């Protein structure tokens, strides 16, 4: 068994050394965000500033990266979250992860601060420190154009250099967007990392793996979600469905429905701007939209960007969404946090609290404002600090749409209360994916598990959080897991009596899900219909990995991240939502249109095996092998 090899890099002293992952850690934590959370807990001291030289960023891969396993090009970055002070994990497509592995390293552990702008070059098992002074000041597209074409790259733009707290890092056109990755790079004077190599990853059972991959790809291509709707519309296709379910954040999450939402929908994008679709390395889904923006072919926006730069700022200006999406990627900023911060500033203006020149429905000055934010120019430096910071300076905490400091994604949880619980408990803050993404099963997918009923939402959230955590830790894209929604439901549709019946009874399955979570050893098989990633991991590593083990891996990862947050001072008080979502009805005539978090959170803690303060019990941590 080949164990992962990392490079431990100190930017201050310009030194690096090989760092070996033990067999125990590999078997227990596998790779990606799970292993990285363990390492971050082990290797860093409590209470450090996320933008200080002492801060550590772990960039790592998983056993599936670089193999033919479908949708397996995602690499992970774990670090202290710039916006929340808790843990951050941010994963991204692009070439970098695969190339770093081919160059001889499964991961990098980076600390320190370079004296001058620096680039790391990873080739043939060696790390070289290079000057990046000539690249400093360039944005992500130009920076990458200056670097060797065949290399995998991670770079930052102006926003990262200026420590915008939600700055991102780019790998090709793919972004490691959330939690301030780019700011961490910028604080270390780390402009870029490039990697090149030709070493192929080892596969324990190559023939069986080859056959399995073929079967899995066929399964993905035949599933209505991954074989039809995602290639046709990408995630952008969610806009109209979310709007029809009143789950599309509108006017800074004041409402859940926008009359003009169709103008920024996936269907309109496909009909009027789409050039073609595209995909990441090894991905058969090909969800990326290639669109025309001011005569240039660029990467199209995802659902989150369309929702938060459309309905949430009362805009039907699709061309402006495309432009800001492109600008944000080029300057290196997370579109979710950027758009949500702008929406908050619009509400500050509407309430007469502060004026940053932004107004709901007005988009013509946004390109100028976004540029000023990236450069931290004048008052716009305030907007570069994110929603929570702004609300602390100017007031407005009740309508500052973040959790723990990270801006909430584009799902209105008052019409998807399980998603509300997910946001509140997500380890990295207001993230739908780390939160378990129940919105897909409640309001924006084919199934509608009674969106305003808290029944079973705690147990389903735990299950989904653990499952998605495991998929991420395997190095796979979460979209590859969406085949677990049975294809038959798509054939029947959301209005079919059977689909509606499942939606009604599912709120009563909490006990069953709880039992399943407690007895994952009973899921001692692998199936394409559940989480095929488990079988793929088994065939690549040779380790025993049944679906139950895979869910356990996710649970281990989620608990590790929770332990990091607790160490850094986050408490149950941080497992909450903005007042607007908890107290103000979305529909004034419907008492159920708030998030009943107080009903769900205690059940969630109990299901997780945590105490009433949300702290994992010793028994739970021992069971997971964390202590």
């Amino acid at each position: 068994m080949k164990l992962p090899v990392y490079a431990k890099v100190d930017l201050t002293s310009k030194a690096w050394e090989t760092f070996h992952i033990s067999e125990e850690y590999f078997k227990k934590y596998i790779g990606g965000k799970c292993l990285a959370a363990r390492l971050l807990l082990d290797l860093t001291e409590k209470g450090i500033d996320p933008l200080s030289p002492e801060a550590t960023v772990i960039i790592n891969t998983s056993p599936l990266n670089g193999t033919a396993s479908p949708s397996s090009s995602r690499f992970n970055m774990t670090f202290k979250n710039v916006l929340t002070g808790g843990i951050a994990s941010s994963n991204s497509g692009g070439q970098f992860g695969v190339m770093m592995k081919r160059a001889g390293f499964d991961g990098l552990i980076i600390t320190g601060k370079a004296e001058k702008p620096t680039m790391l070059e990873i080739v043939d098992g060696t790390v070289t420190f290079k000057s990046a002074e000539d690249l400093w000041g360039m944005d992500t597209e130009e920076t990458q154009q200056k670097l060797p074409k065949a290399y995998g790259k991670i770079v930052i733009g102006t926003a990262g250099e200026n420590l915008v707290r939600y700055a991102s890092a780019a790998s090709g056109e793919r972004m490691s967007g959330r939690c301030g990755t780019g700011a961490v790079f910028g604080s270390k004077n780390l402009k870029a990392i490039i990697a090149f190599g030709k070493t192929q990853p080892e596969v324990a059972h190559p023939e069986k793996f080859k056959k399995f991959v073929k079967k899995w790809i066929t399964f993905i291509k035949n599933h209505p979600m991954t074989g039809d709707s995602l290639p046709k519309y990408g995630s952008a296709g969610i806009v109209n469905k979310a709007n029809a379910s009143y789950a599309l954040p509108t006017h800074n999450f004041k409402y859940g429905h926008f009359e003009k939402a169709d103008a920024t929908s996936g269907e309109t994008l496909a009909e009027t701007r789409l050039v073609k679709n595209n995909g990441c390395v090894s991905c058969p889904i090909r969800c990326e939209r290639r669109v025309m923006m001011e005569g240039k072919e660029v990467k199209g926006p995802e659902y989150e960007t369309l929702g938060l730069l459309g309905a949430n700022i009362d805009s039907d200006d699709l061309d402006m969404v495309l432009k800001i999406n492109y600008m944000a990627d080029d300057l290196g900023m997370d579109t979710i946090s950027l758009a949500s911060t702008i929406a908050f500033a619009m509400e500050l203006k509407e309430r007469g609290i502060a004026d940053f020149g932004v107004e709901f429905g007005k988009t013509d000055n946004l390109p100028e404002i976004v540029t000023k934010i990236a450069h931290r120019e004048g008052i716009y430096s305030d907007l570069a600090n994110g929603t929570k910071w702004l609300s602390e300076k100017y007031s407005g905490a009740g309508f500052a749409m973040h959790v723990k400091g990270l801006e909430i994604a584009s799902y209105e949880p008052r019409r998807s209360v399980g998603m509300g619980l997910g946001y509140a408990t997500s380890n990295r803050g207001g993230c739908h994916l780390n939160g378990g993404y129940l919105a897909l099963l409640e309001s924006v997918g084919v199934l509608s598990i009674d969106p305003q009923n808290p029944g079973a939402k705690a147990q389903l959230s735990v299950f989904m959080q653990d499952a998605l955590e495991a998929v991420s830790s395997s190095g796979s894209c979460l979209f590859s897991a969406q085949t677990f929604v049975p294809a038959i439901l798509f054939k029947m549709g959301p209005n079919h009596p059977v689909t509606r019946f499942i939606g009604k009874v599912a709120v009563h399955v909490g006990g069953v899900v709880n039992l399943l979570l407690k007895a994952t050893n009973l899921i001692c098989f692998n199936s394409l219909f559940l989480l095929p990633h488990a079988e793929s991991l088994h065939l690549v590593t040779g380790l025993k990995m049944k679906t139950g083990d895979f869910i356990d891996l996710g649970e281990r990862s989620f608990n590790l991240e929770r332990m990091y947050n607790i160490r850094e001072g986050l408490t149950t008080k941080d497992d909450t939502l903005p007042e607007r979502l908890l107290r103000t009805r979305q529909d004034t005539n419907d008492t159920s249109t708030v998030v009943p978090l107080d009903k769900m959170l205690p059940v969630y803690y109990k299901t997780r095996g945590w105490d009433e303060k949300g702290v994992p019990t010793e028994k739970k941590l021992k069971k997971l092998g964390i202590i």
Partner: protein
Amino acid sequence: MNVTVKYRGELKDFTKLSEETLSAATISDVLNHIKITYGKDALKTAKRMVIAVNGKSILLLKNEKTTLSDRDIVTFLPICGGG
């Protein structure tokens, strides 16, 4: 009731129209129109889509029994995913 029906996604492959105006009192009437005019396969496709009245899913209304008013807009939308 004269309502406007908008066809998106794969349903447009059957109707060859983006929208049309027709007389219908309920969503069932609209589905019946699709069956008679465009055939059983079109109906099957229509039934598995998101159906919205003035932008609101019929799941939040009365499903196929949802009643329609003059100048209502009925939209058929594809089911998508992602996140």
